[in-house]
């Protein structure tokens, strides 16, 4: 994909309001531009939000909220940190963040991949869902805040805990996987039981899981120029929902 | 346009209705040898049994011919057809010109060569005259022998028996109903007849009819040496196509009159239908003579439409028989006795002797191709659908068919909708 000649547009985003920036991107995309280099991005929201198709974005700077929301197809590389809401309800494509990312990453995401090299904030991967061949994946190289994978209904979260600035924190915050009723969370190393949501337990991974992890890590390492074998050298545990109907017995007809 | 139909049976009725579907005006003339308006030949047994009166014989109401604009020439025999001049010559000395001609002359009873056959007291069972004679004879007659254990023979036996006559049936084959039914069905039917009091002799036939000096029949000597005393012999072995008219005027005949898919004979203005025609069989696709009531009507109908200018192929006849013996209904449709060695056929049969009920389904390459029902016949039409429409029979469907629960919901969706809800998505 990278080898194909692409019509490229380089934009200096300094001081450009997001609405103009995104309008410009949409317009260019409709005219056949498929590679965007955005320089001096600083807080512009909704970059690549709602975009479809084979587009590539190289973002230099700090993109703003809801980057890649509802996105379906494009590849985004951020050479820095990202803020909150990356990949909100994202459908497909890939977001690679060579830094840390904020809260609520991949909310209700149902396809595509989000790779973060460093730490992520709270409520990452909540409400992720899968259907048939659409299986969203989030890989976090560092550590995550609380409520990772809350309400998770499908997809894969891979938490490595390796490239983190938070030396003393546990690999994940509290209430991981609360209300989870689908999908799987893989964690490199041990999962502190007290950090798990009610009813959840970490189990050792099986051969199938390892095959899945290996596939994901390979791509992750390639995108972020990391040593995949080093990542895979650690042990992995997994957290799965104890029921696909966690609240089935909570109610009685009045 | 003048349509002339020779023969006044069900094929002609079909033809009249077919012609009128297509052409409201053209003149239609029917020439019939018998004196009465068209009647249902199978009704003869009902008449003979006293179940219906002569007034109930007519197939169509009196006004039918008038409303259909048909001129009737009854009691008239056609002696000759002149295809070149497009005329038919009758025994009344008339020459009737036609534009299109239908030969619906039906079949004639097959009479075996039995010594002593010639003379009084021998009847067949295919026309009204004989039936009327038998009715009057039945008052005095004590015993009768019916030669032939097929459908006609059995019905003849039953109706005579109902008139108080002691009846014996002779069947050459090892069992009765050998053609249309299988052994189990025959067994149940035969049991029902015997329980009623009819004597059934299988594997034998008449060797000789013995007569007294007046020529009256004394009795019948059987091939196994038994002698049955009787005054009356009813020959009910079957019918053969009555195709002499066609043959004599050069129209191509084989087992019957040869017709193409539009029921047209080798003469383009002459059509044939009914028991005389050798037409397409639905299941095999071959042309053969299938002397079945329904086929006769359908062929007549199809011929009628095509005579009047349509070009609609005959879909093919399906052999089917429905007959009851003392309240025990039996039915057979399509292929019921598949070649035993052929592995492509599969038979599923359920027999319940106590309930006198029998169901036999014959499958061929994922399709139902025939069935026999005895006793419980209420689902018959639903089975017929599978045979007639050649519907696919998947596992669940097969199970349902075999367990006696066929239904329209087992039809493929698309076919169901086309059939029941045409014109919708």
């Amino acid at each position, binding site marked *: 994909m990278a080898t194909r000649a692409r019509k490229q547009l380089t934009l200096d985003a300094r001081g450009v309001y997001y609405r103009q920036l995104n309008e410009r991107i949409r317009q260019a995309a409709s005219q056949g531009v498929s590679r965007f280099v955005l320089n001096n991005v600083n807080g512009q*929201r909704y970059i690549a939000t709602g975009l479809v198709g084979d587009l590539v974005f190289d973002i230099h700077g700090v993109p703003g909220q809801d980057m890649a*929301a509802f996105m379906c197809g494009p590849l985004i590389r951020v050479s820095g940190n990202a803020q909150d809401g990356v990949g909100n309800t994202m459908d497909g494509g890939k977001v690679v963040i060579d830094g840390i990312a904020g809260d609520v990453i991949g909310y209700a995401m149902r396809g595509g991949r989000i790779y973060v090299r460093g730490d992520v904030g709270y409520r990452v991967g909540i409400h992720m869902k899968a259907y048939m061949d659409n299986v969203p994946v989030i890989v976090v190289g560092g550590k995550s805040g609380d409520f990772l994978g809350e309400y998770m209904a499908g997809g894969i979260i891979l938490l490595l805990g390796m490239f983190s600035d938070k030396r003393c924190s546990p690999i994940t915050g509290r209430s991981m996987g609360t209300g989870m009723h689908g999908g799987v969370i893989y964690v490199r190393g041990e999962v502190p039981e007290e950090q798990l949501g009610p009813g959840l337990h970490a189990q050792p991974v099986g051969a199938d899981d390892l095959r899945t992890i290996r596939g994901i890590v390979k791509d992750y390492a390639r995108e972020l120029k990391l040593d995949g074998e080093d990542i895979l050298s650690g042990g992995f545990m997994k957290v799965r929902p104890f029921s696909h109907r966690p609240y089935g017995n909570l109610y009685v007809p009045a | 346009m003048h349509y002339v139909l020779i023969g006044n049976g069900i094929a002609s009725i079909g033809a009249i209705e077919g012609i009128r579907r297509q052409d409201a005006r053209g003149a239609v003339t029917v020439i019939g040898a018998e004196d009465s308006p068209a009647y249902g030949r199978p009704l003869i047994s009902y008449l003979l049994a006293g179940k219906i009166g002569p007034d109930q014989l007519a197939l169509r109401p009196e006004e039918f011919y008038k409303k259909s604009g048909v001129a009737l020439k009854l009691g008239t025999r056609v002696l000759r057809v002149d295809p070149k001049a497009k005329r038919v010559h009758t025994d009344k000395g008339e020459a009737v010109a036609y534009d299109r001609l239908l030969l619906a002359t039906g079949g004639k009873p097959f009479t075996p060569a039995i010594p002593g056959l010639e003379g009084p007291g021998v009847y067949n069972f295919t026309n009204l005259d004989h039936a009327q004679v038998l009715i009057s004879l039945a008052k005095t007659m004590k015993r009768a022998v019916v030669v032939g254990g097929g459908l006609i023979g059995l019905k003849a036996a039953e109706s005579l028996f109902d008139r108080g006559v002691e009846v014996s049936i002779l069947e050459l084959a090892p069992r009765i109903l050998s053609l249309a039914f299988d052994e189990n069905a025959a067994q149940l039917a035969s049991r029902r007849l015997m329980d009623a009091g009819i004597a059934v002799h299988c594997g034998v036939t008449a060797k000789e009819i013995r007569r007294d000096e007046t020529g009256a029949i004394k009795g019948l000597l059987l091939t196994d040496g038994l002698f049955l005393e009787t005054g009356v012999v009813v020959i009910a072995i079957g019918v053969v196509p009555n195709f002499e008219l066609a043959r004599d005027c050069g129209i191509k005949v084989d087992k019957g009159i040869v017709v193409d898919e539009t029921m047209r004979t080798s003469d383009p203005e002459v059509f044939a239908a009914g028991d005389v025609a050798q037409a397409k069989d639905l299941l095999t696709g071959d042309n053969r003579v299938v002397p079945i009531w329904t086929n006769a009507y359908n062929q007549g109908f199809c011929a009628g439409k095509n005579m009047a200018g349509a070009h609609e192929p005959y879909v093919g006849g399906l052999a089917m028989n429905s007959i009851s013996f003392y309240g025990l209904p039996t039915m057979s449709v399509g292929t019921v006795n598949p070649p035993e060695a052929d592995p492509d056929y599969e038979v599923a049969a359920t027999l319940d002797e106590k309930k006198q009920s029998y169901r036999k389904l014959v499958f061929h390459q994922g399709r139902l191709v025939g069935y026999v029902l005895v006793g419980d016949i209420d689902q018959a039409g639903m089975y017929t659908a599978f045979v007639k429409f050649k519907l696919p029979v998947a596992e669940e469907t097969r199970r349902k068919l075999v367990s006696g629960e066929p239904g329209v919901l087992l039809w493929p969706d698309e076919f169901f909708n086309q059939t029941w809800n045409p014109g919708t998505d």
Partner: protein
Amino acid sequence: MLFRPVNNNYHDFVIDRDKDRCINCKVCVRQCSYEAHYWDENRQRVMHDNSKCVGCHRCEALCPTAALTIRKNPSEFRDNALWRPVFLKNIYKQADTGAVLLGAMGSPVDIPCYWDHLLLDASQVTNPSIDPLREPMELKTFLGSKPRSLEFATARDGSRRLKTKMPPQIELRYPIMFSAMSLGSINYNLHLAMARAAEETGICYNTGEGGLHKTLYRYGPNTIVQVASGRFGVHRDYINAGVGIEIKIGQGAKPGIGGHLPGEKITAMVAETRMIPLGSDAISPAPHHDIYSIEDLLQLIYALKETSEYRLPVSVKVAAVHNVAAIVSGIVRAGADIVAIDGVRGGTGAAPCMIRDNVGIPIELAIASVDQRLRDEGIRSQASIVAAGGIRCSADAVKAIALGADAVYIGTAALVAVGCTLCARCYTGKCPWGIATNDPKLAKRQNPDLAARKLANLIRAWGHEMEEMLGGMGLNSIESLRGNRDKLRAVGLSREEMDILGVKHAGN
């Protein structure tokens, strides 16, 4: 009757079967999805089990000999104004199960209904009432943000051209829409029926939060797509499928509470549309986890506007709660083009009873205070207001509009139109009327042809009544009614209530 918990016998209904009329035809047996009627082999006749009856009246409605009457169970506890039987029965159930009381549809408790305390005006002598049958009468309504003023250019030929760029609008032939009811909570047949009825009557239906089935995209011009916390079936094409997008924050029947579609209702079609696996629960959390503050709402509103390239108005639906006026003001300032407000009497497929019956405020008060607040702040034209939650008849709708709403949503009324009897057991998935069920055997009780016709009839009937009421007031266009509280008078309300509603007492 033996061998079952005692409180099963404290059932709510009894089935009254008239033996002279019952012919044992089993229509009731086949219709009752709760198996309250059954064929008794021993007795060789149809029998029933009162404890299973939920009071849906399906059997009564279909009994061909009118042999059945469903009655309230006459068995009563000793009179106690405080400890009414419902409280006792609920406690018995909870003591047995330790579970949360679940209810459905709008709250059955006696929360004051202000529609019943408001009366409409009519013209007499000094101005003429207008006859809607013969004179033009306009109900056409546009939802969306309106500019404060317009600029025109006049061409040389005298024709005028609009210079102001108009924000996107949803055009409605009647100021009524079908409320959000998700595919899954109700079945496809009703979605199709709503879509068709909306198309036929020139209004909109709301998909609810369960996505949009692929065959319904063709009804886009009459569709508002909803985005809720579960984000079921939400993707770019979905967002762009209709004429408006609605962010669901809350629901009148359960403000502050999420939703939960049980796995039983997740059939193949529902799973496909929601983009979730077959048979697993569909959980909508109480909040959108990307919205914890008003600026987050703004963020989502504009994410949706970006995704729809600013072609579609964005609506935000909230439950009517105590501070609704301030909340709505914030929502309008966050960029919403439409605000839908759902009052405490709003319907639901499932809600904890305590929430349903005790949280929220009536829609009448909410609309009045929101409309006034937005006018006070000079931002009323920036967003349209849609009132929802217990609109039972066209007069309710007219009153809502006179109080300040632009249009109303009807949910329960639409379901009643197709047979719902408010038995309030939607969450069982066994709706005998084929509404709140995806069981193919039950769902087909809703023939979309029939349902669409009934829904369209309802809209037209209400429309006609609204025209009559409007004509009676001497108005021939709905915009002259909107916010026109002069057309309302209160009966039996306190000064305080009238102040909030902004109406005078009748006689004044």
